[in-house]
């Protein structure tokens, strides 16, 4: 009874519950990833988690914060998992560690720790690493890779080299490069190559994306996130993709391809829904999600990077406070009047 303040009772909700539920919602995606792409993703998740918790503990200690309370809040773990899931799964261990420590130490704690960071830590890790180590960040496992779990781990820990034969681009990047190189061959012909592109948007990857979508619906059902940002993101990405596809289907992939390729679904449900760095008002979330969707498409199709979610999110993180300030809903009794 140290603080005498109403209300005097409350339900058992907590930051930890929000963070850990979000982690749990990633599990289907992780399972499909490990099954269809590479099981080594589990190693990367472990490395990232360990690095994140170590970085978090170090910073909490330096900042004089209670270790027990904040280390177990689940926020560092969620950041770590998002980093592991967005980095190439066979990248060397130190790349994941560098990205994770950058996210935790610089993006999160130097900005004031939990709740105070301006940028999404996981997206900052991705952006920093793709700028600093562009080659490493573009080496994805070739489709249908035949490599034992032990061998995959040997690559991660630098015990055997990552050969060109087992590394390649993401389906999204592969499509872009192919269109540039071939010039004459259109998208429909390229997508015939089921070996790379699978049935929809990348062999195996389309199922990982679907599993993220499933996890996102779970978060919606649990009221951890609201529909606004994800729906706005999906609609704007699909609309822009659809427009260009309708305009020239030989040069532009279908909206469905774009929704299931790259980081679209994990971005829609797990990144742009980050309450700390995103918008908080419903209208703000719609605007935030819609612009991230447009930017993502522009960067992934016309830009130099294989995917655009990270840069689009970081750009919009800067704009989020302004969007929030401009989209304040009218208060009780003031509807229909200027707030």
């Amino acid at each position, binding site marked *: *009874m*140290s*603080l*005498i*303040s*109403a*209300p*005097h*009772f*409350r*339900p058992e*909700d*907590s*930051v930890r*519950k*929000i963070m850990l539920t979000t982690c749990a919602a990633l599990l289907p995606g992780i399972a499909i990833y490990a099954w269809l792409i590479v099981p080594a993703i589990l190693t990367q998740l472990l490395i990232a988690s360990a690095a994140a918790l170590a970085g978090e503990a170090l910073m909490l200690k330096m900042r004089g914060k*209670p270790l027990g*309370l*904040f280390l177990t*809040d689940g*926020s560092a773990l969620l950041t770590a998992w998002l980093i592991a899931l967005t980095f190439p799964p066979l990248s060397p261990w130190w790349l994941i560690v560098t990205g994770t420590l950058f996210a935790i130490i610089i993006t999160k704690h130097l900005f004031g*720790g*939990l*709740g*105070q960071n301006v940028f999404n830590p996981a997206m900052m890790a991705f952006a920093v690493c793709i700028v600093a180590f562009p080659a490493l960040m573009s080496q994805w496992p070739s489709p249908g890779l035949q490599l034992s779990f032990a061998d995959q781990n040997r690559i991660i820990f630098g015990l055997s080299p990552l050969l060109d034969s087992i590394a390649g681009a993401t389906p999204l990047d592969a499509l872009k490069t192919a269109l540039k190189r071939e010039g004459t061959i259109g998208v429909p012909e390229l997508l015939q190559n089921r070996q790379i592109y699978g049935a929809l948007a990348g062999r195996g990857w389309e199922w990982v994306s679907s599993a993220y979508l499933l996890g996102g619906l779970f978060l919606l059902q649990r009221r951890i996130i*609201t529909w606004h940002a994800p729906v706005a993101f999906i609609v704007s990405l699909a609309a822009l993709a659809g427009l260009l596809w309708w305009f020239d289907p030989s040069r532009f992939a279908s909206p469905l391809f774009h929704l299931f390729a790259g980081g679209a679904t994990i971005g829609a449900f797990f990144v742009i829904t980050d*309450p*700390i760095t995103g918008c*908080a*008002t419903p209208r703000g979330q719609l605007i935030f999600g819609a612009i991230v969707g447009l930017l993502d498409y522009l960067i992934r199709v016309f830009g130099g990077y294989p995917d655009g979610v990270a840069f689009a999110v970081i750009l919009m993180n800067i704009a989020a406070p302004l969007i*929030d300030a401009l989209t*304040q*809903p*009218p*208060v*009780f*009794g*003031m*509807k229909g009047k200027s707030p």
Partner: protein
Amino acid sequence: MMSKLKSDRPLYRFNGGVHPPGYKEQSTREPIAIAPLPQRLIVPLHQSIGGTPRPLVKPGDRVLKGQLIGAADGWISSTVHAPTSGIVRDIALHVQPHPSGLSALSVLIDVDGKEEWSERNPPDYASLTPDDIRRLIQQAGIVGLGGAVFPTHGKLTPSAKFPMEDLVINGGECEPYMTCDDMIMRERAEGIVRGAAIFRDLMQPKRVMIAIEDNKPEAIAAMRAAVQAVGEPFEVVPVPTLYPAGCAKQLIRVLTGKEVPVSRRSTDLGAQCFNVATAYSAWRAVCFGEPMISRVVTLTGNVGRAHNVEALFGTPIEELIALAEPKPDTDGILVGGPMMGFLAPDTAAPIVKSTNCLIAHSPDLFPPRAPEMPCIRCGECARVCPQDLQPYELYRFARARNFGKAQEYHLFDCIECGSCAYVCSSHIPLVHYFLFAKSEIWAREREKKAADQARDRFQAKQKREEREKAEKAEKLAKAAAAQAAKKAAEAANLGALDPEAAKKAAIAAAQERAQAQRAAAQPKNTEALTAGQQQEIAEIDARRAQAGVDHPESSS
């Protein structure tokens, strides 16, 4: 007896709201009991919004039950009556049932146990004018018993500009644990209906609605039966149970779709709202001449015998809660409900008109709040806010002491219902921050007002002093000039006649100059004089100077 729990009329909804567990069943098993007379009553004079009533008794006076002991101080002020007969022991500061634990002027009465009533004159209702009734209600000390304790007579005048449409009798009672309104509706339904009829007569609304949350089926049935028995065309409307549907503004919204902004009166939108217990008390006052001296209080929480009692105002909290047999691990008493109430800083404080519920507090029933985490802007607080505010933004501004921005984000629209803090996943006591910001803003406004007044005073003083200085200098200059001219003329006259006289005149002139210099150098205590006084002094000085010339012998 099953009663229909769905409203016949279309209802509206307000945004947000929360569903805390009710815990109401435990205190509705027994009928309302009458609390035994305490030995001593502590009756605070200030028990309502508005001016503090003036004490009408002095130590040693014998008072009768229902006797006026505090007179209203203005129109928005209420009256206070002796809850029972006894001797006034003292009129002194006594600790109040307020989170601050501050003391206020109270009439301390030694109860004589005779329960001797003062004269009650039930008036002839039919002969009363609306103004008579409003005065009667004020004289009976009727204030809103829902918790806001606004003087009821002040709410009984319809707006001159807007037609009165909806009169709402509020039996919502959305706070968990609290059942005093529920029990009053079950047991005294007819009185409530008759009280509502008095309000109806004064307000002339198009319709009267008695709104009750649908978790009180017994109360709904009782009120429906009473409406039928009395034969009034009132509607008993079950409303969905959703905290804080019992707040006047939210209830008006649910029933009528009208949203009353904080800055406006609900009568401006043709609606008005009264608590059921207020209606009952108004009926007792107008038709029986009984002033408000007691109320029904819920005693519940960590107790062996949760129930409702009719308690006299002034009964100490500790004596009253004892009736419910608190369990040994009780570590405090909550005054009000768990959503908006506060822990009594001192249980010697009395029951007052706003005290609707006492809850024995224990660590098991009310576990200590988990440690506060940083806000992650999850937005749940905004989704449950019934006033459509953004509590996470208000919290950010309050914490940063950015009070201007907090006001811009409508801090003063907050009704302190506690829904935001209830759902906060970071366990932030949000309402606490808002109360802090509000009190800081009020304190600053008071300071600013005081500073403005001081500055105005200082500037006025400076202006006056400058003006006086200028006036004085002008006078002196004029007088000196007049003197000089006179002397010059005299000297000319005298010099022509007699060189001795001329010499005398020269000496006198020198003396005069010296005097003038002295006067200029030492203004004595003449700084704060009015212009009239200045003029007088100047004239006297001038006369003196003149006298010196006319009678040089006398001065030497």
